[in-house]
């Protein structure tokens, strides 16, 4: 019987804490316990024996800290750790003892919040798993993982390098969240999507606190669940660490885990063989609890939360998709993530539940752009994403690094499509949008569309993808080219839901293509589709019309208890919007306020009122040449503010507010100026390698942009080679570098040296908390800048402005 069958067939016991047993025997604080496999093999063997004698079924090899980042000789430690555990296991003659390859976190934080590349993490885990092949084990146990992205990297490495069962154990605090803020439901969504063999939790809290988390895991997954709490919380008594939950209390509470259906129990820090002996004594005779089958709910997740689909209709924001959006196209061509992230924030604030991410343009590298967009958006948003691409390589890369279980947009009824998408979904997890189109095109009847949906569901099953992970999109086609198209789509929703029992999604706004006042049509169609049972709507969440339909529908369909949601929505609408709602210029919700030209653009910029500045620029542009507006209004206003700041008569926030207002005006004016003409020069900015603080650099960027410079922001922790590459590709000779710590100043020097060696006429300016005139000279920079305004002055001088 393998370990998974064992878990499913009878209550199974893990061993207890290993580290605390070693500490008792002299392991020093901060010392890597895995080295004891080489230095104290007998001690390690004895601890395993004690646990086996206590009655456990599973022993975890002493390999927790054996990773390339923590021990150079990790491979040796893993082999000896497993050899010792196997020896102990084989000595036991009355039952099978299972040996776990115990793998802990790497000890470094992954990007985007840390500095470790995702694929680097995958390869470290792969090395660990491959090192274990020098010995043997029954399964892989990832333990004490507190970061969902690192967990994903580990599971990918295990799936790619081994056929062993995979158990994943995360650490949750008293509020049932991981250090990254991830909930048990979100972890289950991701891990079940990746088809691991068992999920569990260990460490961080005692049994009483962990029980709550265990209940939530049981509710959220159909996989076997295991639990290994600490012996409560540690405190110091006479120089030794003592845990506050004793063996009796611990073993009492562990019975409750068994009673709710947990398949395997054990212990973590502070639990000894005596603890496990008592746990086994007290729980052995509890009748096994049949786990209630988890309802076939469709679920996706982000790094923070799980999102269940099919309970209440949800909105997918469609704005990050270049089709018909020239500004986004331009942003994608320039890899301008500022624009993309602003859209993401706007959609989230407008109430989107999921964000669609489509960065496909013929002239961009979609593979790398898609991954970067996913990483950057996940850094700032906790919403789940819909990965929208027809490029299988872009999809696979994005699926790897996506932190959670995403929506995949899309598969269709063509064999070619299904054979490309399903293996990826099966490996990385994901719910898939299935379009009812196949080799013969889009059928013109609801019945035939449902047939394609059925075919897709059947094919998915061959890849072990369950029906709950297929969301059918019966396709809305322009009603202007076929007057029956809306009706067919609406009928399809009903049939597909009733006959196939799957969730349904729709790109709503296609329906109005080619018609005037598209939002009128979209709104009505949306309401009709919701009434037929639409679960997911891909819409513009900033559209007032769509929000109006959505919020009223929820209320009228008994999904808004006490009408609270509707009242909140309705009472936040500003008066002019209610008045003009019948005849909007566009669907967008904007709070336009009347402006008078007498107030002047100059004044708005000086006072830092962005909206008014943009609107004023718009009006001015109709009567005056935009270049003249820049020269007569924008520049003098900025000069005034900049001067006042330099004379310390204005504060930095004022400078930044003015800069934002000037930027807003520039954006408007640029539309009427031939591309590039309004830009005073191109500048690269980067925070150097090893440095993750970029607040100062961002301030410099804002002010430079307001002065009309085109800034290529390479972000933080930027390698010298990356700066050089960007300078060459974009033909830029002016580079600004920042560093916060004395320890990263050498990176500044490396970058400048590399730049100067390859681009003789490069000009470099440096700044940052620890940088001064002297330091600038030392690193070989051409100029030192004390603040944002000083950088503008240096740039103006360099570019002759």
């Amino acid at each position, binding site marked *: 019987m393998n370990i998974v069958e064992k878990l499913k067939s009878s209550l199974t016991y893990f061993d207890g804490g290993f580290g605390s047993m070693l500490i008792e025997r002299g392991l020093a604080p901060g010392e890597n316990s895995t080295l004891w496999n080489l230095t104290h093999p007998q001690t390690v063997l004895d601890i395993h024996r004690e646990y086996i004698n206590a009655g456990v079924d599973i022993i975890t090899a002493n390999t927790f800290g054996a990773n390339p980042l923590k021990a150079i000789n990790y491979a040796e430690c893993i082999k000896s750790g497993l050899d010792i555990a196997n020896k102990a296991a084989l000595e036991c003659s009355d039952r099978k003892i299972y040996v776990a390859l115990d793998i802990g976190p790497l000890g470094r934080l992954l990007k985007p919040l840390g500095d470790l590349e995702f694929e680097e993490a995958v390869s470290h885990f792969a090395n660990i798993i491959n090192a274990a092949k020098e010995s043997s084990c029954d399964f892989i146990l990832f333990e004490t993982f507190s970061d969902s992205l690192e967990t994903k990297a580990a599971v990918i490495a295990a799936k790619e390098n081994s056929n062993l069962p995979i158990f994943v154990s995360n650490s949750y605090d008293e509020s049932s969240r991981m250090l990254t803020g991830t909930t048990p439901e979100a972890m289950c969504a991701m891990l079940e999507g990746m088809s691991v063999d068992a999920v569990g939790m260990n460490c961080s809290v005692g049994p009483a606190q962990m029980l709550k988390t265990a209940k939530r895991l049981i509710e959220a997954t159909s996989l076997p669940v295991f639990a290994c709490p600490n012996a409560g919380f540690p405190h110091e008594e006479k120089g030794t660490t003592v845990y506050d939950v004793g063996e009796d209390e611990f073993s009492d509470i562990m019975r409750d885990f068994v009673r709710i259906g947990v398949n395997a129990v054990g212990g973590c820090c502070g639990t000894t063989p005596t603890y496990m002996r008592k746990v086994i004594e007290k729980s052995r005779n509890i009748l096994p609890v049949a786990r209630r089958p988890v309802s076939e709910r469709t679920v996706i997740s982000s790094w923070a939360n799980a999102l269940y689909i099919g309970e209440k209709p949800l909105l997918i924001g469609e704005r990050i998709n270049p089709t018909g959006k020239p500004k986004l196209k331009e942003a994608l061509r320039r890899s301008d993530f500022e624009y993309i992230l602003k859209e993401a924030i706007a959609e989230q604030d407008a109430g989107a539940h999921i964000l669609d991410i489509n960065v496909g343009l013929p002239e961009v590298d979609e593979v790398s752009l898609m991954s970067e967009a996913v990483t950057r958006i996940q850094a700032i948003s906790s919403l789940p994403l819909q990965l929208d691409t027809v490029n299988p390589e872009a999809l696979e890369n994005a699926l790897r690094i996506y932190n959670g279980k995403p929506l995949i947009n899309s598969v269709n009824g063509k064999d070619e499509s299904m054979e490309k998408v399903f293996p990826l979904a099966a490996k990385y997890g994901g719910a898939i949008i299935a379009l009812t189109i196949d080799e013969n095109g889009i059928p013109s009847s609801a019945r035939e569309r449902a047939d394609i949906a059925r075919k897709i569901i059947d094919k998915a099953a061959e890849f072990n993808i369950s029906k709950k992970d297929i969301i059918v999109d019966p396709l809305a086609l322009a009603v202007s080219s076929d007057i029956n198209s809306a009706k067919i789509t609406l009928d399809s929703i009903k049939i597909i839901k009733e006959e196939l029992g799957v969730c349904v999604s729709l790109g709503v706004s296609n329906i109005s293509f080619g018609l005037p006042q598209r939002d009128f049509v979209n709104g009505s169609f949306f309401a009709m589709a919701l009434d037929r049972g639409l679960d997911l709507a891909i819409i513009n969440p900033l559209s007032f019309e769509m929000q109006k339909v959505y919020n009223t529908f929820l209320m009228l369909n008994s999904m808004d208890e006490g009408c609270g949601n509707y009242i909140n929505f309705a009472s936040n609408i500003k008066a002019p919007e209610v008045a003009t709602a019948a005849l909007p210029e566009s669907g967008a919700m904007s709070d336009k306020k009347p402006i008078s030209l007498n107030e002047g653009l100059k004044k708005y910029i000086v006072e830092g009122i962005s909206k008014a500045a943009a609107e004023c620029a718009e009006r001015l542009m109709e009567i005056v040449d935009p270049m003249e507006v820049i020269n007569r209004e924008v520049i003098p206003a900025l000069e005034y503010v900049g001067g006042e700041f330099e004379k310390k008569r204005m504060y930095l*926030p004022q400078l930044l507010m003015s800069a934002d207002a000037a930027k807003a005006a520039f954006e408007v004016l640029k539309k009427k100026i031939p591309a590039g003409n309004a830009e005073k020069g191109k500048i690269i900015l980067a925070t150097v390698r090893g440095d993750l603080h*970029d607040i100062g650099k961002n301030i410099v960027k804002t002010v430079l942009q307001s002065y009309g410079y085109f800034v290529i922001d390479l972000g933080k922790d930027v390698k010298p080679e990356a700066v050089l590459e960007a300078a060459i590709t974009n033909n830029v000779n002016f580079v600004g570098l920042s560093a916060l710590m004395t320890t990263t100043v050498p990176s500044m020097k490396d970058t400048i040296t590399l730049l100067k060696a390859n681009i003789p006429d490069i000009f470099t300016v440096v700044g940052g908390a620890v940088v001064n005139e002297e330091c600038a000279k030392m690193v070989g920079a051409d100029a030192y800048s004390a603040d944002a305004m000083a950088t503008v002055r240096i740039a103006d001088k360099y570019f002759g402005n």
Partner: protein
Amino acid sequence: MRVIRPECRIEPRVNEAIRYMKCTGFNDSDFINKVNTMANTLSESILPLGCYHYVNIAREGGKVDIGFGKINSRLLERALEGCDRAALFCATLGQTTDRMIEKQGNISSLDQMICDALASSAVEVWADKIEERIKGELITNPRVSPGYGDFSIEYQRDILKILEAERIGVYLLPSMQMLPSKTVSAIFGIKQVQ
């Protein structure tokens, strides 16, 4: 190592954040409102965690040793003067705060600057609270952190290792910057209780 969690919400000190931004005296009401609103949003998003550990102090030739060899630092010697034990601790606002600061950067650099300054003040508030809780009734010296004066920042590595700070999600970059970015580590001497 013991993990420590706040007993109440950690609120940033607005005036201190304004001082960090060099804006003391800038009494623009829009600005002050913006800072106050951000302070609220921030304190809702932070997930503070801390850990601490006691060490014995050994002395040799005037140099102190707190478990990882002799340390060359007058600042530390003075901080541990008259003490035979010390407490090491680490306070962090967690990853969600870094996400929040990152997000503000996409709204505007002003919002980001304000959020960053407030978070810096909040982690000091949290560090103060941890210090207070560890101290209890003990008589202690003021705390010091690596990276100040002649107490080399390189000691950050040893301190975080002893604290097993990874367990509360604190990591160290090769540049000795701690992640999450709003994290403080410190040591204070404990005088023999009478």
